[in-house]
């Protein structure tokens, strides 16, 4: 059930926009944070706040792949299997994880810890093969590192994104996507190593843009 606090936060999201319906995508992220998935109650409350029909809200909720109708585990583990990552090893990683966790695509382990899904290009191709945990980058993976990662997460061990903070839970991540920051922006580096290779070469050669 959507409680009063969540309801008022949903209304707060809608109020950020000149036309309140614009708040629907972040509102649905907040529903997932509060409920663990898109629920009928979440849809009803969004529809009430936005003064649109539940069918209209459902139509949006079913269009976008980040919205889930079934409960997601504490850690949503995405393996990029778009062409470049697939070729670089993503297919092998995904197969290994399916076998290791004994789940299929978009399924959750029995302990409710891990939901495994293959994902499309996540804009980190220079770190291929890439995995995402709760939409944090896990760069340059191998089948072995992927197995170790999910084992650690299931055992409750602390793991960090390769370019960010300690991994938070899926529901905590969804709250940030709804526009409620979690104060972790200062964690992690400015950039991963691949982002800096061209800059390092420019520095070595003293190459610069022209003077103004």
């Amino acid at each position, binding site marked *: 059930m959507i409680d009063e606090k969540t309801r008022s936060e949903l209304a707060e999201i809608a109020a950020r926009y000149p036309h309140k*319906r*614009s708040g629907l995508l972040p509102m649905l992220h907040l529903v997932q944070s509060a409920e663990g998935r898109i629920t009928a109650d979440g849809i009803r409350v969004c529809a009430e706040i936005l003064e649109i029909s539940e069918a209209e809200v459902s*139509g949006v909720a079913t269009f976008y792949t980040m919205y889930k109708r079934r409960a997601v585990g504490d850690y949503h583990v995405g393996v990029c299997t778009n*062409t470049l990552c697939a070729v670089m*090893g993503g297919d092998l990683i995904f197969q290994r994880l399916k076998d290791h966790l004994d789940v299929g695509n978009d399924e959750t382990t029995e302990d409710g810890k891990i939901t495994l899904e293959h994902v499309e290009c996540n804009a980190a191709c220079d770190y291929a093969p890439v995995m995402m945990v709760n939409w944090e980058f896990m760069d340059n993976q191998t089948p072995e590192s992927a197995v170790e990662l999910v084992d650690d997460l299931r055992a409750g061990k602390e793991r960090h994104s390769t370019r960010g903070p300690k991994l938070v839970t899926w529901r905590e991540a969804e709250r940030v996507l709804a526009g409620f920051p979690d104060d972790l*922006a200062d964690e992690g580096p400015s950039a991963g190593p691949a982002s800096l290779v061209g800059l390092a070469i420019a520095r070595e050669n003293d190459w610069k*843009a022209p003077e103004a």
Partner: protein
Amino acid sequence: MTDVLTPVLTDNWDADRSWTLASYESRGGYGALKTALGKTPDDIITAVKDSGLRGRGGAGFPTGMKWSFIPQDNPNPKYLVVNADESEPGTCKDIPLMMASPHTLVEGVIISSYAIRANKAFIYVRGEVLHVIRRLQRAVQEAYLAGHLGQNIHGSGYDLDLVVHAGAGAYICGEETALLDSLEGRRGQPRLRPPFPAVAGLYASPTVINNVESIASVPSIIGNGAQWFSSMGTEKSKGFGIFSLSGHVAKPGQYEAPLGITLRKLIELAGGMRNGHQLKFWTPGGSSTPLLTAEHLDVPLDFEGVGEAGSMLGTRALQLFDETTCVVRAVLRWTEFYKHESCGKCTPCREGTWWLTQTLARLEKGQGSAEDLDLLLDQCDNILGRSFCALGDGATSPITSSIQYFREEYLAHLEQGGCPFDPAASAVFAREGANA
């Protein structure tokens, strides 16, 4: 003579805590904003026009001209929307930019909004990049506290509010009119044009939609001058851009260079292809741009040069594949992507991408017949130019170009009754010496 690499947007990425306001301002950040507020909005538009900046999101439309299409006599509010939905396979430049230096984008948003006289701006960022969203949220908060955003910015009388808006997983929302529908809280489906967004965009009001890198380039143009910007690049493709190398190259990563650099030069900088392997095929600007091969290593990577070579510069997403890679496998996977991401609005794309996948999957398994290649080309012919937006067109690019350059490899699948390649050999963690 301009240097081989020209870090501008990437120049502060190795600075300590580069994402913070303090770090950005210590290097002169928000100086261009002060300069801009001392000029008229029309002066800013003129400077961006004179610089020759063309859209960095793929299409290459002149940015200043886009801004000048905003009808200033329209009584509705004007909006600036930044397209930060970076999702084109292979494209990975905007995400590191927003992670390392979100203030470059925020400063660009303020100057650009001032130019088109918008008092409300949005950064529509894809939802699947949590830490990038954190950094953007923090940068916007810092900019408000410093008086760079909000009411009466630095006493200029100009007001601007900026909202960071997370999407929810849909490649189609990178298409600018689908992005607008999504930002209005609807399914992300493209709109019929005309009317163009400049006339009737967000909430049917005049709207400019620009890519992250385009907007992030604006502070440097205002700070250093249009002539400075246009002194880099080629005759019709001015300035610098981030070139993203990925795949079977020794040092994949981001290389910021004047437009017109060649792939040969970039691969040389990146330490060559991975040990003992040769380039087989590559995309110049993401999977929607037709494949090129080793014969195109000396093509100038600018809008005209890549166009003349039969492809498109796109987003400079250079995905490099060596001889261990099966082109049929690569193309099938991209096609499955387009099928998954087709929004379903128009029939040629919705049905066509489904049929393309069926035909390609059959070929990849070594089933079907040589006539299936003609069938594929016929299907592409019925999608290209007949779809509602560029997604359908893009879906045909890898197919037609791969049949053009690698017809024999398709036929080899039929002759051998399956794929002649070992997928393990193309993995980056493949044993040294493993081969196809």
